[in-house]
């Protein structure tokens, strides 16, 4: 089988000193001409023209902060007002979408490098949480076109092409619950890793009990080999105890969105999610700034770089990514985070940590 380069930083990127990571991010921003590329997208073009933004002038992090924020509403507006072909900045290989909101949803273009980066981050996720050779994944998949639907399959390929841990996947979709015997098959296969949204994991509990032929059985009794769970798509914290009680696994929280599968992940220290500084430049818009904006809609809130934020700071997660088909420039994710620490973690990883609190 041919080999392919998965766009990951060389191993060890997780432990680079913070200052090196900041430089790395800045280098990617400038050398990758991220702002200039972005300026071709209908998401930014008109708004930037109006704000007299000179995308070529963005030569460092500080100048990045002179650019306007982008938001989910801007994406929807751009997709509604301009031909869709003017939305991506590069050739598109795959389109993923968010959940439907009302009668609309955001469609996000992915270039080849974006898909490869997603694979690479999945490989990294496995490394960070300690996925082992021969692990058997039970993936409870949301439906396509959500980017999370692709997770098990791209992880499978990341393994076949790069990590070579001989991982095995059983994938069952929520939609097929009650229409397929996948819970029963999962029981027979005895997975070691659960990959699921937290809510889905709890919904499936009764189906596992039914498959086990014991209505009161908990998955932890039926899945003897299951040792860890990776949870994504919604904050884990509110359901963490229930999940631990039901599955008896070590739960790992993981954050990603259709706009950018950043796969910020909890490590074995379980002290916040590492935000990978080699794939994005994260900022936080503090709560006070959000409050000011709410009181005065014309007010433009000020954000701070995550690596400069004080522990305990709470605010909206803002991302600038180096994406190929759609770089996000100061994208307001709508997710509220609390900065846990910018110091190296007990696990040895140097990338700053946040907790995801919910929606703004």
């Amino acid at each position, binding site marked *: 089988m041919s080999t392919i380069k998965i766009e990951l930083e060389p191993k060890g990127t997780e432990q680079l000193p913070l200052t090196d990571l900041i430089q790395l991010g800045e280098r990617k921003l400038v050398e990758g001409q991220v702002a200039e590329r972005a300026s071709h997208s209908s998401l930014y073009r008109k708004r930037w023209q109006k704000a007299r933004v000179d995308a070529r002038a963005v030569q460092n992090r500080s100048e990045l902060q002179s650019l306007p924020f982008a938001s989910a509403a801007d994406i929807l507006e751009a997709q509604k007002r301009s031909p869709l072909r003017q939305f991506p900045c590069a050739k598109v290989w795959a389109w993923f*979408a968010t959940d439907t909101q009302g009668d609309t949803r955001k*469609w996000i273009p992915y270039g080849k490098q974006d898909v490869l980066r997603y694979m690479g981050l999945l490989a990294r996720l496995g490394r960070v949480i300690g996925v082992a050779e021969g692990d058997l994944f039970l993936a409870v*998949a949301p439906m396509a076109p959500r980017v999370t639907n692709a997770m098990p399959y791209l992880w499978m390929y990341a393994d076949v092409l790069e990590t070579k841990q001989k991982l095995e996947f*059983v*994938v069952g979709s929520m939609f097929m619950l009650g229409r397929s*015997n996948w819970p029963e098959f999962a029981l027979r296969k005895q997975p070691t890793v659960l990959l699921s949204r937290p809510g889905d994991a709890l919904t499936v509990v009764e189906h596992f009990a039914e498959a086990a032929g014991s209505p009161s059985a908990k998955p932890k009794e039926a899945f003897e080999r299951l040792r860890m769970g990776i949870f994504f798509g919604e904050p884990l914290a509110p359901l963490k105890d229930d999940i631990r009680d039901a599955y008896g696994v070590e739960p790992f929280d993981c954050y990603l969105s259709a706009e950018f599968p950043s796969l910020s992940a909890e490590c074995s220290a379980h002290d916040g999610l590492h935000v990978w500084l080699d794939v994005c430049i994260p900022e936080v818009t503090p709560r006070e700034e959000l409050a000011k904006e709410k009181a005065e809609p014309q007010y433009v809130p000020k954000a701070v770089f995550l690596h400069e934020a004080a522990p305990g700071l709470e605010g909206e997660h803002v991302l600038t990514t180096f994406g190929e088909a759609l770089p996000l420039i100061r994208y307001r994710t709508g997710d509220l985070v609390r900065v846990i620490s910018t110091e190296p973690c007990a696990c040895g990883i140097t990338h700053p940590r946040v907790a995801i609190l919910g929606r703004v």
Partner: protein
Amino acid sequence: MKGLIWDEQIECMPFSQLQKLSETKFREARVMERAARSALYREKWGAAGVVPEAVRTYADLRQLPYLTGSELREAQVRYHPDELVCSDHVCVWISTSGTTGTPKWIPVGEGDIANFRESIRRLMALIIGHMEDWSMLYLGGSAPFISESGGYIILTNRMLDDARAEFAFVAMPEAFDALNFARIAHLEGVFLAPSLAVLIAEGVTKQAAAGAREQFRKERSLRNLLAMLATRVMRIKAKNVFNFRWGAFGGEPVDPYRGAIVDHYGLQPSSAYGATELLYTCPVAECMAHKGMHVYMDVCLPEIIPQEELEREQTDASYVPQAVPMWEAITGLTGELVLTTFADALPLVRYRMSDLVEVVSTEPCPCGRTHPRIKVLYRSDDIVNMGLIRFSIYLLKQKLDEVGVHGRLAKWQLRITREGVKPKALLLVEPQGEVAEEAFVKEIADKIDVLEGVRQAWENGLIAQPEVRLVEEVVEERTTLGKVKLAIYEDVYFKEA
């Protein structure tokens, strides 16, 4: 119409050499030695005295017992799934829909995924005719069905080849939203089930005028005004809305829907035979000549059990029907497809597909390929095939045996017909004595409705509403060997050349 042929040396090899090719690939893939590791074959072959290493040619292979879907299911109950696997590394497990109640779980090995890369190249050249930039809406099922994983595997293989493609993967329940996206994204190709394609096209035609009015109400632009006016003077069809230039259709036979798809979408559909057990190892699909689906003989060894043999078997359960290798089959031969695949994780050896096929031709195709062509007619076993909806005739019998409140059935006969393009179940019933007709018919119709998916399918327009018709006498039809046919296919589309 000719298009690119990916591997001319193999795909256009003289027909007379295909047997040798198939046998050589069979040996090179060490199918027998690997299959012997599986619990699926071990006991059975042991009892039959099979020496795997001694099976080198088709003449040897044809001595082996057949494998059926039921045996595969039973093996999965008796043994742990891992005991069936013949390879060192299973990447992912996929399952069939479980038409008969128990899905079959199929392991996909690393070698299968590697081999599929070549199949994808070949298939896309077959269906689209070129390997350049293409875009498609991929409307698949949800996991654990093969069509979910298939989309990502195609995408990744394209990336490995650095041959660009653009995909939107969407699960079928979100089809309408996806099609709207395909419209604005100008996607050029589509993969979905043919009955769903027709259902969507009918919806487009019905809703076009109202949709255009609504769009104009929301946004009073010149463009929207013209669109609204257009719906007043012309019948809008899917081809007026979408930009699809090609379509690959699978999950059910395409022929019944072919005319409607051409009419609505303005494209010639390509049929893909998407059986879960074999898609990753032995894809079967239609080329741009649209004269049957090519069965590639370098990835499988195909046989056909002629219909007469099947009927003889139905009458005498101990009879072992004789199969004809595809290279000896004559044009027009109909029978059950039997495949030996060269898969990595689970090679299928003389696997009876339970699908009745017709050999369209073993002559070279106008496209230039020489591998034989077939078309799938319908199930050869007890499964009633109504496109995406399938159920066991014996399950229907079980339900009809329960009827007794408003009368009883003396005889019945299910005829699978069509209303327009939609499959329709017509149940002819000969009542036993006097019955309260209206209530009796309703009682029977309710029994049909409880069969999995039937009611939902007709309510959503996927199939026509089943009809129960009381007749004075049900004229029984029997096989040539005397067995009563409980289900009869009246479908003219299946019989078209």
